[in-house]
């Protein structure tokens, strides 16, 4: 009896391994198992008509050793940003998009919209690093919080003077502290969004916010018309990033250890700072690129950079930004690029 059982198990395993090998070690969505992939949030694509359908927008994935991006979620979804909550083998992927906040708990096989009509468009999502029940989203009508994995949402705008919030992030040092990049200022809440206080950046139109990965008191914001503003004292005082144009900066990113920060925006090219955002140097003029919407720095190799552009897909550099090549998603507005398992 036992030998039959063992034989059955071995046979079953051999079938599984055989299937896995014959598929090139890929799952149903074409992802190679146990290997991270690049994910890109594509908001629009030139030529896309918003009321129809298009396979050129949505969530795209590219294997690390491949050059082809594949749309892995139903097309026709404006995708503003993405997120991953990971604990052990549990991986929940999030899409913040036109129809709301989507979550996949099965590696992208299926997705569920977590929000309803009250939240309208979801511009970004922040995930509590410990408690998977707690989610924050930025919307045109303020910050919404869920404490039950997205089943119910509460609007959290007490203390905010303006309601448009482009981005929300969680302080990596204190998960009760939340930052919201809003129309008039950068706001901070120290109580999970219950009460917000404006930090007084000094210029309006805060589009994005970055907290330094090593020094949590260093905060940077990208603004709509006034370049990058930097605070080295936890938001008490702010200064303009030196050497940069005073225009729109949409993207801020840090290398894993925080030695190098990157910034890009509207007709800015790509800038880097090696002193926590105080001074900046242009490393790629990128005259052919109208705007940089997103920046990715490889966590294992900080010389490997990928930028997402406005309507020109993604560009990639393997030498720290000295040379660049077009790397797919032609025509796409790429709002975020991540490396996810």
């Amino acid at each position, binding site marked *: 009896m036992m030998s039959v059982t063992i034989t059955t198990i071995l046979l079953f395993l051999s079938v599984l391994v055989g299937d896995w090998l014959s598929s090139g070690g890929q799952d149903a969505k074409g992802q190679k198992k146990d290997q991270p992939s690049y994910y890109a949030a594509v908001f629009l694509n030139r030529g896309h008509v918003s009321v129809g359908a298009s396979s050129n927008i949505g969530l795209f994935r590219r294997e690390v050793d491949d050059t082809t991006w594949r749309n892995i979620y139903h097309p026709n979804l404006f995708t503003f940003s993405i997120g991953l909550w990971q604990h052990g083998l549990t991986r929940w992927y999030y899409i913040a998009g036109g*129809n709301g906040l*989507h979550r996949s708990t099965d590696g992208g096989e299926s997705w569920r919209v977590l929000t309803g*009509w009250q939240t309208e468009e979801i*511009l970004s999502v922040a995930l509590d690093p410990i408690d998977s029940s707690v989610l924050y989203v930025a919307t045109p009508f303020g910050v919404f919080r869920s404490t039950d994995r997205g089943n119910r949402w509460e609007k959290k705008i007490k203390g905010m003077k303006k309601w448009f919030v*482009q981005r929300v992030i969680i302080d990596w040092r204190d998960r009760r502290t939340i930052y919201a990049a809003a129309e008039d200022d950068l706001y901070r809440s120290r109580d999970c969004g219950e009460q917000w206080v404006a930090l007084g950046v000094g210029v309006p139109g805060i589009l994005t916010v970055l907290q330094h990965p090593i020094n949590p008191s260093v905060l940077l914001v990208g603004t709509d018309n006034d370049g990058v503003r930097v605070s080295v004292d936890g938001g008490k005082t702010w200064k303009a990033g030196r050497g940069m144009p005073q225009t729109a900066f949409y993207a801020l990113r840090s290398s894993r250890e925080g030695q190098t920060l990157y910034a890009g925006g*509207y007709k800015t090219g790509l800038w880097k700072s090696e002193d926590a955002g105080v001074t900046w140097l242009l490393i790629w003029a990128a005259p052919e690129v109208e*705007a940089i919407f997103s920046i990715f720095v490889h966590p294992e190799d900080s010389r490997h950079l990928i930028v997402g552009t*406005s309507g020109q897909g993604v560009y990639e550099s393997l030498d720290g930004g000295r040379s660049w090549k077009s790397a797919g998603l032609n025509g796409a507005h790429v709002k975020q690029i991540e490396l996810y398992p």
Partner: protein
Amino acid sequence: MGLVSAMKRFPAIVCLILFAALFGVSRGQPSFEQRRLRLIDVVSGERDRGFFTVTAKFVAGKDKEFALQMLDSLTTDESIGGMFYSYAAIGCYLTLHDQLPDSLNCKIRRAFRERTMYRGDTENHWVMYYTGIYLAAQTWPNEGRSQWFNGKSSEENFMEAEGWLNQWIKVSSTIGQGEFDSPTYFITFITPVLTLYEFARDPVMRKKAQMMADLLFADFAVEHLKGNYCGGHSRDYPEDVINPLAAPAALWAWLYFGEPKLELWQETRFRPRHRGGWETVIGAMSSYRLPDIIYQIATDRSKPYVHTETKRVRNVIRFGLEKNSPVYKYMYMTPHYALGSLHGGILQPIQQHTWDVTYVSDKPNNTIFTLHPFYSGKELAMFFPEEQKFLADEVDRYHKVYTNPKKWNSSSPYEQTFQHKNTIIVLYDIVKGAMHPHIDGFFPKNLDERIEDASGWIFCRAGPTYVAFYPLKPYQWIEEDVNWRWRSKELKNGVVLEVGSSDEDGSFEQFKQRVTRGKPEFQGFDKNLTVQYRTRSGDRMKFTFNRERVLNGKPVKLTDYRFFNGPFLQSDRGSGVVKMTYRDRVRVLDFNTVTVKE
């Protein structure tokens, strides 16, 4: 379900069509019944792919095989989808599923499982999307999350759609639509509302849909003149702005109001765009019947009247103090023309039409108006969440003309109006450095007369309608295809316009003489931005840009405007009760109790 029962009475429909064809036209204006059958007949002969065409072919019993091929293509073509798809697909299914092969029924069901029904980002998108989701969830209840494209169960989808539709109906019946009175987008509201009316099983939702259809038609009716949707509009396509009978709403007017008395799809002079998706056939196939009182309101132009309304600004997400501040509308309607206006400023992005005079004519382009062709990323960013430096380009990619200095639709923060009956003062205070620093006026070439008088007035005549137009500043004429473009490049600027007719003024000469007795006063205009004018009827108007409007010495308070106020429609803003009046008849829509009394 009228449509379903109509299907069962198909042979009778054929007889009716034949009857209509044989006797309707020869006996003069066809009845609604004849018009609707005629439309079904016409659309059922169309070859353009669409759910409405498919449905019409089945209802008329024409070309069924071809219709099935069309439907198969519609359900398998991944290049189409979204909110337009969702409500049309489920409407088609609910009408025809008894007659469709199982494979096609399954394909329609599968579309709601596998295709992303994008919700969109405008009011009309959401009405279409949630109507589709509501009816689909109602049709396939008790199905789990894996059976729906959005991972929500049937119950969850139904509750969400029901919640939003209830909210939309409440807002629309108390403070008005954001995309209000649109000759172009009327179809994107009335078609899903009629679909909801036809198929909602919940009697309360069905009643609400019926009341919303009444409200949409009544709102149209008071500003309707012989097929034209007159006055200021939240959104209008440029080709419809300069040729009102080209607008899709005109075909709905033909179907329900019987005006114009033309089969518009055959009238190439109006360059009709109604053909499009043939949405109007949904009205023709619906069991909804327009209350006669609305028909009378739409067509009785025996007496001139003033009608005012408030609507709401589309959702402002940034650069504003209020999410939905009021829009103030004014309309003066006569048998020959209508002069109507919004109070001005940015009330809508992209396609606002602030004011016009529209007159009855058998010629196209029967309208005169001015505008400042403003555009800015910031304006768009007030309403859309994308980066403002890209919005203008993105909008241009779809709507083609947004940044065009010659465009014929635009909101502008530098334009305001003050209307009293058949007179309007339009003022402009364009800041230096603004994009396209000029104002344009549309004057059709086919006017019977256009005369530049030594008094400074420009007089126009179109049949029995007379227009007097007084520019405050120098201008030039630019000849174009169908019109003369009146253009003035002065930044601080304005026009005064009076409209008359043979009924009011006798001859054109008499009109001119009455008008030239007066002249706008605007000394020191560049500093005080003030115009005073005594109309030919003796009313004294004084208007200062960004400040007060004064009529006969008394300030006009726009904030006093009711939701609807005129001889035919009355409602207080926020009340949810709309009263229709025609002679001794009254119909009351009470959205609070979901009741109709007549």
